[in-house]
């Protein structure tokens, strides 16, 4: 294979057959526009398939828009990160491509005092501001939960008339929608309030360790910083508690009663069972606001709406408890190991450097819990409520005849939903049929075909010519994209039985591959298999009890797969680029999480 030096231009990447009209699905400002070609081709863009591995429905584009815009604003406008503005982004053929925006050299210096003042305030007051953050986020979630999307009644309630309200039912309906979107916008503002700074402080410790020990593994550094008790692990811990409670109360047999309702009915027959049901109900809010996806897609399944998912995991855990397995995370061991390696590396430093080590590690440990915990509060809990509310609205439209399937609203973009609401309300107000029922079904059908066609073609890893050296801090920090990684994408692999990625969690194992492309296939995983997937979400935690190792296409040392695997003591190789398309289910693999090498040992 000959090495190339550039990735293709977006302008030369035609849509897959059947997807030619894909631009109809997304906002104009996210297109590579023909009249901006020179400028756009002059930049290096990398595909963010880590967060958005699949082409998204028009509505779902809101997640990338809000997330990446808010990421940028904190660098550009809140803290004035001296060398870095935000990350520009485009959608092409259904995938999102990112390009970090630097600061002109002459403007870097003048931003320093502002950064010291603003970011300094956050570092100095991290914990109190974080307490405040949690209050804000929970209040935001509560506001979302309170939103109601009620069917339009036949007539305006007589009380409304008699109290002289002077408003009809479409007003609260459209306001609730607008409010949902605004609350979502706030959600993503909050998401990045601490994240960039948190990563930067982590990176400062990381860079210090690399300067002292140039060959220290990324995972050693991560282990010193990573917390033991993260809210991200709480949902899984709740399932384990419920499983153990079922076993210790002699109720395990009821877990096999059938559907969730049948299990709960069987449990209700005894005091112990009713206590178990109370514990189950207590765990649901908030901990079942947890998705096996990543929160960025409207079809991510949240446990709280799919109780069969957590119930299935509880059943598996209970079976393992009955077999005598220890199902709890070995938190004491993890903490002891963290203390041990911290002390040992510190011991290898001279006295001066030990002082710096203590300070930088201390800051990294202060900020890092946010890096882990926010994921539960935003991607899981907030997005769980948001998507649920949007599904309620979609169902309302569906009942009004706007579309064929209850969840078809997500084939409209967020502004079209507003139009459709007016359409609905106009028909209702005028007393004539709305246009939607005769317009949207055909349009949605057309869009579904375009999306299906987009799904058939994988994205390019990147566009245009990469810089000789990737130095942009956020590219490296948030996406794990390094010069080496980009070079590997360019060259490709000459040995089709070997894949290289990031050594994300140590250990060597051999086993059969199970390639999983979406969370809905998680049930296929058999005990002892090696999970191979484009990207994992932390909520896949329960399957980590079954598998031997994880291999992902995307992600770095602090990706969810890496964090969870280290917690569970499983080898992981992340960021292989192509594992999920190269490896077939059933093949024997050797996964070396210490070197980052994956070897295909035999055919399926």
């Amino acid at each position, binding site marked *: 294979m000959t090495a190339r030096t550039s990735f293709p231009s977006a302008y030369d990447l035609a849509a897959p057959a059947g997807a030619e009209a894909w631009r109809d699905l997304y906002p104009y400002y996210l297109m590579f526009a023909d009249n901006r070609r020179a400028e756009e081709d002059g930049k290096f863009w990398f595909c963010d398939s880590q967060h958005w591995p699949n082409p998204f429905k028009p509505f779902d584009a809101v997640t990338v828009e809000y997330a990446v815009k808010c990421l940028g604003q904190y660098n550009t406008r809140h803290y004035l*990160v001296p060398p870095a503005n935000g990350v520009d982004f485009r959608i092409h053929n259904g995938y999102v491509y990112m390009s970090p925006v630097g600061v002109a050299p002459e403007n870097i210096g003048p931003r320093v005092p502002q950064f010291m003042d603003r970011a300094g305030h956050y570092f100095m007051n991290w914990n109190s501001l974080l307490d405040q953050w949690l209050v804000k986020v929970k209040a935001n979630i509560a506001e979302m939960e309170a939103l109601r999307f009620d069917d339009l009644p036949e007539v305006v309630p007589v009380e409304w008339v008699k109290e002289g309200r002077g408003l009809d039912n479409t007003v609260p309906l459209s306001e609730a929608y607008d409010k949902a979107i605004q609350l979502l916008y706030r959600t993503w503002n909050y998401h990045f309030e601490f994240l960039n700074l948190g990563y930067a402080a982590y990176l400062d410790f990381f860079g210090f360790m690399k300067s002292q020990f140039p*060959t220290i593994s990324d995972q050693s550094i991560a282990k010193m910083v990573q917390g033991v008790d993260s809210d991200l692990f709480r949902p899984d811990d709740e399932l384990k508690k419920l499983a153990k409670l079922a076993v210790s109360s002699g109720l395990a047999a009821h877990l096999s009663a059938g559907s969730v309702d049948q299990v709960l009915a069987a449990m209700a027959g005894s005091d112990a069972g009713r206590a178990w049901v109370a514990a189950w109900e207590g765990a649901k809010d908030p901990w079942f606001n947890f998705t096996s996806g990543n929160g960025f897609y409207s079809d991510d399944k949240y446990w709280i709406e799919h109780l069969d998912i957590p119930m299935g995991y509880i059943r598996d855990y209970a079976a393992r408890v009955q077999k005598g397995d220890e199902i709890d995370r070995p938190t004491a061991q993890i903490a002891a190991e963290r203390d041990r390696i911290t002390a040992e590396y510190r011991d290898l430093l001279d006295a001066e450097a030990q002082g710096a080590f203590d*300070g930088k590690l201390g800051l990294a440990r202060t900020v890092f819990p946010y890096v882990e915990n926010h994921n539960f509060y935003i991607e899981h809990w907030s997005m769980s409520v948001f998507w649920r509310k949007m599904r309620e609205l979609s169902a309302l439209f569906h009942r009004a005849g706007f579309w064929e399937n209850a969840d078809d609203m997500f084939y409209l973009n967020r502004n079209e939903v507003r139009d459709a609401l007016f359409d609905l309300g106009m028909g209702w107000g005028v007393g004539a049929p709305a246009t939607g029922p005769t317009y949207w079904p055909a349009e949605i059908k057309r869009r579904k075909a375009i999306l299906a066609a987009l799904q058939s073609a994988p994205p390019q890893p990147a566009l245009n010519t990469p810089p000789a*050296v990737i130095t942009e*801090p956020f590219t*490296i920090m948030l996406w794990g994209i390094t010069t080496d990684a980009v070079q590997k994408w360019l060259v490709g692999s000459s040995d089709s039985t070997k894949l290289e990625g990031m050594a994300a969690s140590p250990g060597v194992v051999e086993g059969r591959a199970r390639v999983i492309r979406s969370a809905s296939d998680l049930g296929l995983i058999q005990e002892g298999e090696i999970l191979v997937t484009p990207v994992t979400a932390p909520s896949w935690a329960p399957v980590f009890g079954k598998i031997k190792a994880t291999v992902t296409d995307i992600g770095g040392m602090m990706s969810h797969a890496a964090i969870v695997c280290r917690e569970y003591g499983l080898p992981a190789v992340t960021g292989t680029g192509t594992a999920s398309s190269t490896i077939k289910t059933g093949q024997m693999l050797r996964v070396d999480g210490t*070197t980052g090498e994956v070897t295909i040992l035999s055919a399926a």
Partner: protein
Amino acid sequence: MTAPLSPTLTAQAAMIDARYILPFETAQDADHPRMGGKCASLARMIAMGVPVPRGFAVATDAYAAHLAAGGLNAAIRAQLSHLDTHNVTDEEARSQAIRQLVNDRAMPPEVEAAIRAAYALMAPADDLPVAVRSSATAEDMPDASFAGQQDTYLWVVGADEVVAKVRACWSSLFTARAMSYRADHDLGQIEVLMAVAVQEMVDARSAGVAMTLDPINGDRTKIVIDASWGLGESVVSGEITPDNFLVEKVLMQVQKRKISVKTHEIIADPAARCTVDREVEADRQSQPSLSDDEVIAVAQLARRLEKAIGGPQDLEWAIDRQGRLVALQCRPETVWSQKKAAPQSFAMGIEGVLGTLMAPIQNKN
């Protein structure tokens, strides 16, 4: 794997002539100057509970007694008084002459008796193979780079041979190289004393060295292990290309394995009472000379010594045919450890974070 090979010599101490013999297991810190660096290191490791083959030091006093007896001292001085270390031919000739003087002279009877008695305690049937190695004193060996200049004799069997090899070690103080070194460093030629280590041979299946830093770059997070089949001499002498293992010290993970084709090994030939350098069977040449578990065991031993002694160490080790790991020698690493690190200053807190964010920009320029 961790049990020492030797039964304790403590009970037999009464039979030892403490003027000339210092058993490793009972030597005290105060004895170390009389034992030379190598023996002192063995004694120290034994005191830490590290498995080390049993043995004893022939103290510097034995060498001093040898020189003092029968005018040997004066004869050597006579040779030295005309020594010209800048004249290679002259130096070599005088080296030969002095070594012959040291070698030909019978030991003082009480010294020889002490060595024979100490060996007999280890080898009642006079048949235990031992290694006889010089153990230079600190003044003579300020750094380990001088190591290996003095002689080592492997698989020495029987008291007669042990006595002869002790004398041969003494004479090795006067190799031309050793004399030049001392001249260059203004060390006296005859004032320098030597001890000799007599130590049970390990019938090594695999052996080699371990350094508690990466000698390529001084990286202290690594332990580097060279290993090959048979006795470690083939590794130390560089006769073969050993297997090379890179271990992450803190995580204790084997990060790299470079398995070489190890064509030869030095092993015991008990019948011939010597070691032989023989070709390794074809199928074993490319096999790893250590399993991963053994690599980790060696690394843990090296790490333990580094921690206990303080500072990077250079360990010689062997694994016998029963799979037991022993330490044969441990000395401070000298190349990187003596480098003074440039004074560093560190930006802390928000300044540090700022520096981290800015660094990529600086790199670009």
